Every structure is written in C-alpha cells, then in structure tokens.
C-alpha cells in the first residue's frame, strides 16, 4: 500500500502525510469533476438528439451559458445581483432569528419543566404542520416584502434549533453532574461551565439544519409574493418558459446554500473545537 502511494510522488520528495493527502485530494476533485462532466455531457446528448424535447429540458450548454451570464451580472452588480443579494439576506436573517428564538425557547423549555410539560405537545404539533399552509396568512400579516419571507424562513428553520437546544441541555453526563455537585457548584455555574458547553455540539447541529431550512423558507416566501430573489426568478422563468434561466437560478441557490452551510460548519469547528477529537456526540 505504502509503495503504491509512493509512486504518486515521482519527484523524489519524501512521502509525508500532507503530501499524500494532497495528492489523494486532488484525485478526488478530478474524479468529481469527471462525474460532473459526464453528467452534463449525457444531458447535452439527450437534449440535442431530441430524446428529451427542448420544452421540457433546456440543453446543458444553454443552462451553462445562462449561468455564466448571471454570474457575470452578479459580479458586475446588475439586476441578478439584486436577486442574489435579496435571497441571501432573507436566508441569513431567517437563520439569525431562528437561532435567537430557537435557543431562547429551547433554553426556557429545558429550564422550566412546567412550561415544557404545558407546551411541548403543541410545539411538536406545530412542527408537524406543513408551514407552507400558513403562506396566505403570512402574506396578510406581514405584507409582500422582506418581512413575510423572513417569517416563513423562521417558521421552517426554528424547530431544529429548539429541539437540539433542549436535547443538548439535557445531555450533560451523569459523572459531570456528580463532580460538579461534589465541588459545590451553583445552578448557574453548572449551567455556564458544563451544561452549555455540553449542549454546543447539539446546538450547532441544529444551526446547520436551520441554515438549510431557512433557505427553503426564503424561497417559499418568494413564491408567495414579491418581485425579487432567486426563488422569484425561477417562478418568472417558468412563466416565460425560460427554463435555462430557471436552472441557472436554481444552480445559484444551490451554491448559495452550500456556502452558507459551510459558514456554519466552519463556525462549529471554531467554537466546538473539541468535538471531533473527543468524539462527543452527536
């Protein structure tokens, strides 16, 4: 095995770990680009040959052209930039409010058991309700602008934060509790020094989900009403039968969602630096 890997380093430099990892990473990226190329090629073939009619699916090359044009438009601050920026702000604000509200509600529910007993079934029920059913009401209450999109994003994204905050605050190890009791810790010392750090990995798992859900909520919000945002662009593309524009907007949403999710992952690695190493859940 080692010998085979050394063949990847023909320049005679020592096969250090970093170097091997670098070479295997480059291979993986090549493999993934290859898979994408294959997928796009097949797509192009099926559409150009007419197997899939063009009114159902635009050619891959058309989508790439539209995407290139949109990216350029975003970079030069054109109309597309407004759509991109609008959705970005909606997702981010939806996320921030979900985190603030979710952590507060989760903490209150886990600290005050009576409140939890009284309200938990309704929270579960609210989570089980398809939030999109509230769309008409949300438009009536919050209008056609920003606010209604953010409310929809929060409605979708707040629950994973609540649930994970509760789970995290309840996850304190029995031995940790015993130690803290033996050391005479007060309730607030136990909370700040042990229970909250213990809850952080759980909470960040909730934040990651919340970021993805917030994007879902924002796009639903743009479908409900309004005249800006990438979700709105896909809707418009459908009405105008510009499927290539629609696909381009979807690709942009995908990239946006990926980057925002990465942001939370990077923050988690920074704030919960012990998680990967100590193997603590989840």
């Amino acid at each position, binding site marked *: 095995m080692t010998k085979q890997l050394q063949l990847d380093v023909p320049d005679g430099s020592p096969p250090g770990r970093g170097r091997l990892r670098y070479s295997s990473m480059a291979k993986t990226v090549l493999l993934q680009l290859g898979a994408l190329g294959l997928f796009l090629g097949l797509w192009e073939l099926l559409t150009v040959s007419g197997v899939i009619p063009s009114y159902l699916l635009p050619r891959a090359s058309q989508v790439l052209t539209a995407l290139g044009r949109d990216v350029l438009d975003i970079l030069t601050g054109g109309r597309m930039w407004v759509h991109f920026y609008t959705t970005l702000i909606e997702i981010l604000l939806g996320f921030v409010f979900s985190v603030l509200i979710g952590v507060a509600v989760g903490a209150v529910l886990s600290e005050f058991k009576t409140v939890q007993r009284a309200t938990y079934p309704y929270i579960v029920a609210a989570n089980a309700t398809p939030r999109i059913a509230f769309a008409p009401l949300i438009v009536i209450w919050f209008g056609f602008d920003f606010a209604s999109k953010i409310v929809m994003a929060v409605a979708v994204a707040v629950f994973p934060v609540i649930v994970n905050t509760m789970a995290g605050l309840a996850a304190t190890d029995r*031995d940790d509790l015993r130690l803290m009791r*033996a050391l*005479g*810790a*007060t309730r607030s010392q136990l909370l700040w020094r042990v229970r909250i750090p213990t809850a952080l990995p759980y909470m960040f798992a909730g934040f990651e989900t919340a970021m993805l859900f917030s994007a879902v909520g924002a796009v639903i919000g743009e479908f409900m009403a309004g005249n800006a945002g990438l979700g709105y662009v896909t809707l418009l593309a459908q009405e105008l039968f510009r499927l290539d524009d629609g696909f381009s907007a979807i690709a942009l949403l995908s990239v946006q969602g990926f980057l925002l999710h990465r942001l939370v992952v990077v923050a988690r690695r920074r704030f919960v630096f*012990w998680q990967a190493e100590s193997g603590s859940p989840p």
Partner: protein
Amino acid sequence: MEVTIRDLGKVYSSRGGEDVVALEGVSADIASGEFVTLVGPSGCGKSTLLDILAGLIPPTSGSVSFDKGGTATAGSTRVGLVFQKPVLLPWRTAAENVYLPAQLGTEPPGRSQGTQLSERADELLELVGLGPFAEKYPWELSGGMQQRVSIARALLLDAEVMCMDEPFAALDEFTREQMHVELLRVWERQGFTGIFVTHNIFESAFLSDRVLVMTPRPGKVVAEVSIDLPRPRDKGMIGTVGFSENVRRIRDVMSEHWNE
C-alpha cells in the same frame, strides 16, 4: 485530618416497596495521614460509603465527622474526590481542569486571582508528573495521564482527605502499577488522609496502611487487616514474600466472612 465514622447506615427504598440496605452499622476510625483501602466484591456498598464520606449523599443513619469536628457537606473544600473515570471537561486544558474547583461554589475568586490559579495548577501538574502537558486538552492525553489530571484537580483546594473510587480500574496493568507508585509519592508529600475504594486485593495491599474488608447484603465492614510493609513502597516489593503474605491475609479474611 482524622475521619470518624459512627454506625453508618444507608437504605435505598426501591419502587417495588422493598428497601435495599446498602450499608449497615459501619464504624471506623481513620487516623490523620493514614492510607486506608475499602476492599470488597461488587455490591458491598464501598462506593456508597465513599459517596457519604464525600458528602455526595446523606446517610440514613449514623454520622461521619472530620477532626472530631463538623460534618463534611457537599462542596466541602476539605475532601478531594477522584472517580473511576477522570471526568475532565474536554473544552478545558489540563491546567484549566485542575483549577475548576476554585471557580465553583458560592465565593468563586475574582479575575485578579486568575494567574495565581493557573500557577497553582501548573505546580500540581508538575507534582503528578504532567508539567509539560498543562496546555494540552484531555483528548490529547492517555487514560493514565487523564487520571493524573483528576488527581491534581482533587489536590487543588489542599484536600486533607482524598476519597478515591476505583480510580485506576479502567487503566491497563502496567499503567496502574505505575500510578500506584505515583499516588503514594504524592500522598507522602501532601500528607492527606487517603481513603481508596477497590476490588483489587493486590492494589489494596500495596497502597494501604490498613485494609477494611467489606461484604455485601447488607454492605458492612467485617474485618480490618493492617499491612506491615515498610514505606516508602516500590514496585520491587510486589514479588516479595512479605507482600504475598499480606495479600494472603486479606484473602483469608475475605473468604472467612464471605462465601458465595
């Protein structure tokens, strides 16, 4: 510090209505600076006894007093505790874990004492042989090293009594033997009263001045064996006739009082 245990009893009432007698009529006098082990099979109440001594749970009857004075309460600064697991917080470095006890309680220190605390933690880590590892996180340390950190933590508030609940049970044989020698070295230097729970007869013979033998159902102290090995002790003693003789005596007492 002396520990006086008088007629201690602990009854757990179970849901089925049947009470479980964990401890019954346990009395013992432990001299200041003495090292005593509590030995017995599982379920003999030795951990319960230790929890009561540490003030973690209240006894159903009887009393524990220190220095013929007040009773230790939970959070008593006089009693250091070492558990079977190291119980270190993974987001704190070794040094930060060691000075955790000073940050708890109703009168935690102000920020100005921060440097003092970390200096004291460094000293204690030095004492348990972990000087260069003060800034490492628990997950960067081996099991034996983690347990040393927890011993240093128990020493932070100048504990005069150290309650140790099978602290080396999870370690491999070699590390355990090394930890025995280290623990005795620390004990001789600090001069605390050591109360050590174990089910390992060799361990109890090697460490203690006196072994209190316990049997289960109900948990009680049935006999005590004085260990007549000279101090300081070292690994070389383990193979000697004198050591085997002491182990045999503990065994004999065990089988005399407990046949199951």
